[in-house]
């Protein structure tokens, strides 16, 4: 399939806009709740822990560990040609989890608990995603 990822596929909204703008500038931005002092991802208009609206944006360290992962050998649409690729859920130092891809890393070194660092990858027209790679 010739279709490629592009920013036009994103329907950004007022929750997500600071997140996407951060990625374009090489920052992984997540929310922090001033009321309960917990970090929040994905971005929302109310804190899902204490329901406060006192959410502010912080730049995450970009460091975390692999919480779980899979190697996709079959995928759909424009992703089908990219198999095999490694998808992970990463737990950031700040305590939130996010889906991502693990890149630049041999399959056999990918394991639960491995330390990873964010890397900003331009994957399509004006679209930057937060991927992760293992910390040496």
């Amino acid at each position, binding site marked *: 399939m010739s*279709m490629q*990822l592009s920013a036009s*596929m*994103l*329907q*950004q*909204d007022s929750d*997500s806009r600071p*997140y996407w703008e951060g990625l374009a500038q090489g920052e992984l931005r997540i929310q922090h709740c001033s009321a309960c002092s917990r970090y929040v*991802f*994905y971005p929302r208009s109310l804190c899902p822990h204490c329901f406060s609206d006192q959410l502010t944006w912080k730049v995450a360290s970009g460091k975390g560990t692999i*919480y*779980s*992962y*899979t*190697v*996709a*050998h*079959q*995928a*759909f*649409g*424009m*992703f089908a040609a*990219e198999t*095999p*690729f490694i*998808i992970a*859920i990463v737990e950031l130092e700040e305590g939130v*989890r*996010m*889906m*991502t*891809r693990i890149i630049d890393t041999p399959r056999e070194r990918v394991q*639960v*608990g491995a330390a990873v660092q964010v890397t900003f990858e331009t*994957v399509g027209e004006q*679209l930057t*995603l937060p991927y992760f790679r293992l910390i040496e």
Partner: protein
Amino acid sequence: MGFAPKAAIVGVAESDLGRTPDKTVLQLQTQAARAALEDAGLRFSDVDALFCAGNWAWSPNLMLAEYLGIRPKYTDTTNIGGSSFEAHIEHAVAGIEAGLFDVALITYGSTQRSDRSRGRGSFTFRLTDQYELPFGLPTPVGAYALAATRHMFEYGTTSEQLAEVAVATRKWATLNEKAMMRDPITIEDVLNSRWIAEPLHLLDCCLVTDGGGAVVVASAERARDTRKAPIWILGHGEAHTHNSIANMPDLATHQAAIASGKAAFARAGLTPSDIDVAEIYDSFTITVILTLEALGFCGRGEGGAFVSGQRTAPGGPFPMNTNGGGLSYCHPGMYGIFLLIEATRQLRGECGPRQVRDARIALAHGTGGVLSSAATVILGKD
């Protein structure tokens, strides 16, 4: 049972299953509904509540009721994925207890195999999907693979243990002439089948089929007059915990099933050891292991050992997924209605070569989304 149940399943049926290129979702549901009402000895004119889950129309219930020529006075389109139909049972019981209606028709139909629709969403990333879909995870299989990896990490669960589920379920399918896949398989076959999303192989995954089903629920009063002995709804529970897999609180624990199972057993006044036959949603082999732990059939992390040695196969101590399951019988996208159909038939003693002897209490458990939702129903006969 220590109380008088308020409602019963009185009719069940499947539509044509497998590949139905000439049938629409409306035809499949009509076929199943008609057969389920005949099974109950009831007519379309007796139906006063309609329950349906699907995304094939702007409002599936409006279109289906019009097509069937019925005018329900109560309607419910609850869609929480594959567990929707077990949730519909809970809602139907609540409505009957409230005196809102007497006869509920629950239907499902899908032509996904013929449509080749599975997993081919449009590439627009909106609302909370925008934080996940751009990474290309094949859904739902990739999400269940993430859960399997975590379960293996925390508890040492093995690919062989996952394969035990697929092999035992296939043995039941060999006894069901309606099952799509009936050739016996071995653990080696599962392990040698191609990767879909590690650690899940092709044979760890459910089928992709067309098909439909229907279940008729009636008040205790009406159930006494139906064609066959009522199958009483003894307990029910439902819960959902998240939508996307990255937001599942603990990937090695099926929290929604813990909640729905606890509620269902409490309402029934029963415990897991009382269950004679279990129909457990098996979208993937890992789904079963997580669910058995969550419902309390074994301890946390013990699901792999629990299914080992073919304990869930015909003749084993824990008869499970006796129609061949979503893994081998059929799986038209949302499988939950077929769990209820098989549990009912087992309690009626209608299952021929796959009949579980002396089955008096059955459990049907649906799981929806990416381990997102769960609903548990416990059934019994007089």
